[in-house]
């Protein structure tokens, strides 16, 4: 079993067909355990029960960045190694990444509501995630704008890599912009010193969500491969002359 074997879409399909049920099962188990542990976790002395949003928010926020990393690797695969599955992986990851980012934003603003008294605060972290969300949407728009996937792939790969280089710069600028305008009155979410009672459910949830991503990503890649097969079959049918 090497990377070369995986490069063959047919082999990829048959392999993932065997792996996916197990992955889905493991994901469900971990998320159930994580949710149970989160529900059992004590309330925070300051934030009360709202702290439990953290168990959903933090994994989503972590995945929102992780998925971009996966897409950057896939973009390298497209541009440098011309791996046949790389642009499939990149295309399939974008909507999932956008969904995780969206959930991070929603849970973040729900968490912020009791803290700030408003659903949205131009907090440095939330703002950075919002920009990340916009970049995901732009990438999806790019994929959708071009009908031929192999042509869209290179453009999307370049944009993904530029985004990967730009993200730290954006993060830094937003932090600077935010501190310039806002004295440190905003609640720092999470914080470095986390009690064990919180840490373990958070880790379980983080692993559960990561597995969820892998499951969804493999399933989406299968869909994309099948969609491309349908497309080439249709093109073959179009070029067939009627008898």
């Amino acid at each position, binding site marked *: 079993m090497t990377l070369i074997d995986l490069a063959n879409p047919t082999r990829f399909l048959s392999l993932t067909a065997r792996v996916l049920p197990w992955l889905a099962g493991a994901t469900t188990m971990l998320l159930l355990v994580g949710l149970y542990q989160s529900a059992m976790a004590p309330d925070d002395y300051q934030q009360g029960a709202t702290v439990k949003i953290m168990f959903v928010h933090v994994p989503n926020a972590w995945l929102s960045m992780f998925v971009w990393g996966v897409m950057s690797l896939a973009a390298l695969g497209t541009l440098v190694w011309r791996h046949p599955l790389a642009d499939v992986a990149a295309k399939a990851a974008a909507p999932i990444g956008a969904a995780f980012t969206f959930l991070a934003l929603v849970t973040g603003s729900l968490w912020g509501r009791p803290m700030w008294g408003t659903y949205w605060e131009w907090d440095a972290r939330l703002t950075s995630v919002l920009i990340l969300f916009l970049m995901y949407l732009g990438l999806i728009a790019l994929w959708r704008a071009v*009908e031929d996937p192999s042509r869209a792939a290179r453009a999307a790969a370049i944009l993904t890599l530029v985004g990967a280089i730009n993200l730290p710069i954006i993060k830094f600028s937003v932090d600077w912009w935010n501190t310039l305008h806002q004295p440190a009155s905003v609640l720092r979410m999470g914080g470095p010193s986390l009690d064990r009672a919180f840490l373990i459910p958070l880790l379980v949830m983080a692993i559960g969500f990561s597995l969820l991503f892998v499951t969804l990503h493999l399933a989406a890649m299968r869909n994309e491969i099948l969609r491309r097969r349908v497309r080439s079959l*249709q*093109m073959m*049918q*179009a*070029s*067939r*002359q*009627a008898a």
Partner: protein
Amino acid sequence: MRLSGRHVSCIRGGREVFSGLDFEADSGQALAVVGPNGSGKTSLLRLVAGLLAPAGGSIGLDGGAAELTLPEQAHYLGHRDALKPALSVAENLSFWRDFGGGIEDIGQCLAAVRLGHATHLPAAYLSAGQRRRLSIARLLAVRRPVWLLDEPTSALDAAGQDLFAGVMRDHLEDGGIILAATHTPLGIATRELRMGGAA
């Protein structure tokens, strides 16, 4: 029915393309507009289609529907095929049928141009010749007495040209009029309207 032009002249971009042109075609007749590049074949068709205004002279259709203008009784098949790649073959054709007020069956029209196998496929997947045949299906989906055809057989292979000749013959037998700009024989009996040079 008679399509006729009297002393038609055309000026485009400050340049006189042609002037004093007379032509006429009766029901059941095809007029092939021939001449070198730049002699104004396309301009003439677009004048008849009402897409350009003549600089002088008049063009008219006698014996057609009195309440309709000439362009409203004509089909124009230009260089550009008026197809949307994002829509399926059937969607493209049924749009032009509904927009033109036609009642013909889409499946039959597509079968007539041998595109029956591609009905549900996106038009983006069609080859140049297939796109041209889909444009020809548009002529069948809505009935119009006057057909204005600009290089209709370009991109068509021999079989496609035969097929189109049959379509045009049927149209002429129904009493239609064809005005076609062309470099190649159309495969039907035509009179020639020579443009440019000695005209």
